[in-house]
């Protein structure tokens, strides 16, 4: 089971945030096939949000084939977004940590690290497309 949170400054509407949090949990393997999601009533009570907002988020996830509602039982995960690549997350994270240490030793601050990462990431993504 996961717990939802709402961020007032994210720029995303509450329903988009709920969808994103489920997708995120599926990608990271926090949610797996067969796991139950909190009920609409539970979510609207916990976050003090309109039940229709929760329904809308669940409908979209259902439409994407990620979850399925079983009437009277609950809503369950039917597909996960964590693929075989999940296993390689650990080693990749270690590489990234080593790289971050190197960047800090070279005198880069947080902002420069982020900028360097994003420009490299974008440049690289562009190459793949071309």
């Amino acid at each position, binding site marked *: 089971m996961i717990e939802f949170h709402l961020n007032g400054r994210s720029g995303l509407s509450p329903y988009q945030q709920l969808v994103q949090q489920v997708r995120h949990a599926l990608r990271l393997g926090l949610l797996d096939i067969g796991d139950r999601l909190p009920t*609409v009533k539970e979510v609207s009570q916990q976050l003090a949000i309109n039940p229709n907002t929760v329904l809308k988020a669940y409908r979209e996830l259902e439409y994407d084939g990620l979850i399925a509602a079983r009437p009277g039982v609950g809503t369950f995960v039917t597909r996960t977004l964590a693929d075989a690549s999940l296993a390689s997350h650990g080693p990749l994270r270690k590489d990234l940590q080593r790289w971050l240490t190197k960047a800090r030793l070279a005198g880069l601050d947080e902002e420069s690290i982020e900028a360097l990462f994003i420009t490299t990431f974008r440049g690289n993504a562009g190459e793949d497309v071309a």
Partner: protein
Amino acid sequence: MSPVLRARALGKKYTQRWALQNCNLNVPAGRVVGLVGPNGAGKSTLLNLATGMLTPTAGTIEVCGGRPAADVTQLTRVGFVAQDAPVYTGLRVRDHLDLGRHLNPAWNDEIAQERIKRIGLDPKQRAGKLSGGQRAQLALTLGIAKQPELLILDEPVAALDPLARREFMQSLMESVAEQEMSVILSSHLVSDVERTCDYLIVLVDSRVQVAGDMEELLAQHYRLVGPRRDTSTVPADQQIISESHTDKQTTLLIRTESAVLDPSWTVTQLGLEDVVLAYMQGSKSTREERPQLEVLR
């Protein structure tokens, strides 16, 4: 399904002043409606007309398909928690529930008892000894256990601290999820309205400025920033809500159903707070006679 609230040319005049004028509304059932606007805009007047505590000076109002407070059936359809959550200070919590049970044909005692227990109210406690948050929760419990088709709440959380406010809204949303109930609540707290409501009514200066589905409304409002220009050049399908100008720049807040194509504008989407404020300011500037825009060469 008949609309939960329908008003046609509705107006209310107190001796000299119109508190509400030419109000036309058609609110579908099953919604949580947020009624927002500055103090003295006419929010409480509209809510009191909907409950039947006030009678209209002009026009008509229908609630759940009938005239407010017309008969016993009509009274059972609508629950009302007035401003500051009034309770009988000399009566115990339990007495309030007894009263509710005897006065409301559709009273659900199970819901009432369960809620009182969950909130942690002592049935033997006198209501006058309760905290503001507990008093509001007691009033809400009475409104919910009555099992109305429509629950009307006038500034339910205005006097509460942030924790009590959140707990109140949690209880309310839980009940909305549980029962098929429409809700109309007035509030100054736009952040609460944004989370809890899916229908919006903005009331400024005794007039309804805008009403409609929350998500649709948010998707139709934009802020346009660009070089200074005369607003008469803006396309007809872009309704200007508020505008401001410097010697070089023009900022508009508009409502439109089509896309903004003019490349000279920087277009941004708006949050609820900006939309509500724009209607408040827009109404003020039309009243105060805007200075004429001079043509720049």
